[in-house]
């Protein structure tokens, strides 16, 4: 393979103050990474200095995660060089990257649930405490305590991971990095699981780390966060580096334009309450729903949605939103309470009954639940309607009419596909979502349950999906919208419900609700 020095050892450990004379902490040049059918990184260059919070901004699919996976040794680049503090390195495994002082906090945490915080912190620390045959638990716990105090990461070192909230688990991940004396910390979309207040606390911690000379690489596609926390911003688009700019003079609009490559409107909350009819399309009363492990995931929830109204459910991930959506759409059994659609009570846990009653559902998991991945676009378009009289003659399928229906939806909802026979697995996320929405709208539903409608989509597709949802509401569909993206809820919803630990803890009209107010409720109504 050539002349590269397999040097992973970084000799000098003295992290000096920010200075022009020092080489940057990270310099990646000409990084190219190919996957079958995808060029994930195409000659990306990236530089981050010691002592700065550097944001990596880009849409989904821009190559941010691939780049950070290369920097942490999970992937190996096909082409390009990595230098740390001026020394060229070549990682053969994630351990090499750890040894070089790079730690990453992934979107999905890498924690062992039955272990305590302290145990998780020493786990995998193969140079120090983790090498010992007998763990000195007390010493580790003390060290964890010191670190959490210094960086404002309140967490009990004796607690087991499963007892912790998602926000606390994230702190444990950061503590792991600090314990290993990481000098470069990568945070991948860290705020998706946090309330706005928790996010602010996190930003404080990251600032402290940067002030001590560490490098924090903050991956995000949320503009205001990037603006709030970063010193500099590197924008990726389509697997290439667009530019690196200072965060302070940049505006949300200028960052958005860089990220998307064209002028876009930054989503604004609805300013005026729309006129709505008084017909209650969906009424949920005292609904209690079990979670996957039999725990109570939704606890006595009551609300109603009127004809043409969009009700957004805000909450930190894992507070019962998914279970609520699944219960209303019949995917999940209900323990008690009732769901009524246009005055008719739904049988719980029966998706077919929900469909027949006029409930459409855009599930969180598009490919796998909303769509059967290996089946054709046509099959997926008729997946709910194949049994209706227009698409089958007795037990026989009307194949031609199925195909015509699919072609109709492809055209009307602008789904980009080579043809109706293509397996949906080959479609992009945005087109998958358009397909699901098109199919769900085609049946003239009374109620639409939408979960995370724009997760993983690029800005163009997000705009389209939002406009489809607004159109549906204008036609009188009652929409229950679950989203982890508060901006999305504020941009679409007429009314906002806040869910916390399975209960609705607040209801606010969208126009007047402030982010702070919603955030406080999302955290359970108490300031931490």
């Amino acid at each position, binding site marked *: *393979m*050539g002349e590269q020095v397999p040097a992973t050892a970084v000799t000098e450990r003295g992290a000096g103050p920010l200075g022009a004379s020092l080489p940057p902490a990270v310099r990646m*040049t*000409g990084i*190219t990474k190919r996957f*079958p*059918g995808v060029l994930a990184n195409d*000659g990306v260059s990236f530089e981050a200095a010691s002592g700065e919070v550097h944001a990596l901004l880009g849409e989904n699919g821009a190559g941010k995660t691939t780049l950070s996976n290369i920097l942490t040794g999970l992937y190996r680049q*096909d*082409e*390009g*060089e990595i*230098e740390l503090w001026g020394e*060229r390195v070549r990682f053969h495994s994630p351990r090499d990257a750890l040894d070089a002082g790079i730690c990453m906090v992934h979107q999905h945490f890498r924690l062992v649930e039955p272990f305590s915080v302290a145990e998780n912190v020493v786990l995998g620390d193969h140079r120090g405490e983790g090498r010992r045959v007998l763990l000195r638990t007390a010493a580790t716990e003390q060290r964890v305590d010191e670190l959490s105090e210094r960086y404002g990461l309140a967490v009990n070192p004796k607690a087991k991971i499963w007892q912790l909230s998602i926000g606390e688990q994230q702190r444990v991940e950061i503590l792991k990095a600090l314990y290993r004396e990481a000098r470069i910390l990568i945070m991948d979309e860290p705020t998706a699981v946090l309330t706005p207040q928790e996010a602010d606390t996190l930003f404080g911690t990251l600032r402290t780390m940067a002030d001590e000379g560490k490098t924090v690489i903050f991956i995000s596609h949320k503009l205001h966060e990037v603006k709030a926390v970063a010193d500099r911003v590197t924008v990726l688009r389509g697997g290439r580096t667009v530019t690196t700019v200072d965060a302070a003079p940049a505006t949300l609009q200028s960052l958005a334009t860089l990220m998307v490559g064209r002028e876009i409107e930054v989503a604004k909350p609805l300013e005026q309450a729309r006129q709505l009819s008084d017909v209650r399309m969906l009424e949920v009363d005292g609904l209690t729903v079990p979670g996957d492990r039999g725990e109570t995931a939704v606890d006595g929830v009551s609300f109603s949605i009127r004809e043409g109204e969009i009700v957004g459910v805000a909450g930190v991930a894992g507070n019962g939103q998914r279970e609520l959506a699944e219960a209303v*759409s*019949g*995917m999940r059994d209900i323990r008690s309470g009732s769901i009524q659609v246009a005055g008719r009570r739904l049988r719980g846990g*029966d*998706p*077919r*009954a*929900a*469909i*027949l009653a006029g409930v459409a*559902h855009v*599930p969180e*998991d598009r490919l*796998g*639940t*909303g*769509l*059967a*991945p*290996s*089946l054709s676009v046509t*099959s997926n378009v008729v*997946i*709910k309607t*194949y*049994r209706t009289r227009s698409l*089958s003659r007795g*037990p*026989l*399928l009307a*194949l031609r009419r199925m195909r015509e229906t699919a072609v109709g939806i492809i055209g009307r909802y602008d789904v980009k596909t080579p043809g109706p026979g293509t397996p949906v697995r*080959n479609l992009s996320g945005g087109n998958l979502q358009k397909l699901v929405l098109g199919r769900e709208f085609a049946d003239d539903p009374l109620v639409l349950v939408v979960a995370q409608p724009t997760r993983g989509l690029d800005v163009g597709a997000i705009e389209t999906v939002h406009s489809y949802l607004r159109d549906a509401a204008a036609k009188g569909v009652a929409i229950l919208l679950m989203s982890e993206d508060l901006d999305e809820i504020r941009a679409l919803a007429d009314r906002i419900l806040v869910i916390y630990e399975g209960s609705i803890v607040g209801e606010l009209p969208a126009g007047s609700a402030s982010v702070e107010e919603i955030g406080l409720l999302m955290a359970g109504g108490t300031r931490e």
Partner: protein
Amino acid sequence: MKLERRLSQPWWLSVAVPVGSLVVAFAVMGVILALTGHDPGETYRKIVEAGFTGNGALSATLISATPILFTGLAAAVAFRMQLFNIGAEGQLYLGAIGASWIALQFGDRDVTSTPLFVVAMCAAAAALGALWALIPGVLRAFARTNEIITSLMLNYVAGLLLTYLIFDSSSYWRDTSTLQARSFPQGKPMPDASNWPTFGSSVVVPLGFLIGLAAALVVWVLYSRMRFGFEVGVMADSPRAARYAGMRTRRKILAVMALSGAIAGIGGASQIGDFTYTLDGSPTGLQAAAFGYTGIVVAALARYNPFAVCLVAVLIGGLLNAGYTLQGPDFPSGLVGVMQGIILFCALGGELLLRYRLRIRRPRTVNPVAEAAS
């Protein structure tokens, strides 16, 4: 060099890969034959002759092909829904038990119409085979047990039941009319009218084979043109999507297992009506033929396509048949097994190339930008 998942499959590949696999198999086998002192060309000529072109060879091949046509279809029907019914073996025994019972009953009542026998034997066999398959089906649908284990284990139960009926009991099926029959256990002979007719003179086609072809057609219509097959396709690909779309998953599991068992059961009826004319309880008889397990291989090679199952059943039938002919003092039966194994191995290995492709990468080119920077 590395394996990559194919994003799309060109149409010609599904023909080229099986043909190519066969060519490779014969090439590899040629080397082994040469090493063991046999002339590969001569051996292959003998196989073709004994299996297909020789005098009466095709008739013998169809006899071998008939049961594995049924079990192959039975496996294909279930596997297409990702329901791994390994129990065609036992379901076939149960079919044979059911068919022989109704034939003996009709014989006792002096029924003489052969068509009536055929219909009744098929119906009884299908019912019993379906019931046997429903045991793992119900367990899977309502208790989420793994149908591979349960259906496999039931094969042993069915085999022991078969042996018990003839060897260890004075059951209705056992012939106890003569002293000899009492000391050397055997099944009662079926009434003459229960013997299924054959068709053709130069090539003798058993009725069972024709019923198998008809079953293949029915399966194709069911799976490609009907709502039943559409639902099976969705459930196979994503059970969650099927539930989401309001499909009745449990019912479908039961229906598919019953259908699979019924087809295997009719295979058992065909054994009685077409070939053995008695219930063969010997552990070295029907049970040693392992039709059920060969059927799984047939289904896999046919990629679960019912028409391809017909073709593959005849090919494998010919190979099995040629194997019997080849065996002799200078050609050990083990070598026949090796040959059949290699063909199957190559054919199944070829499947990998359908879904993945080999990419040979040129040595890494040094990026000029990076070079300049460093």
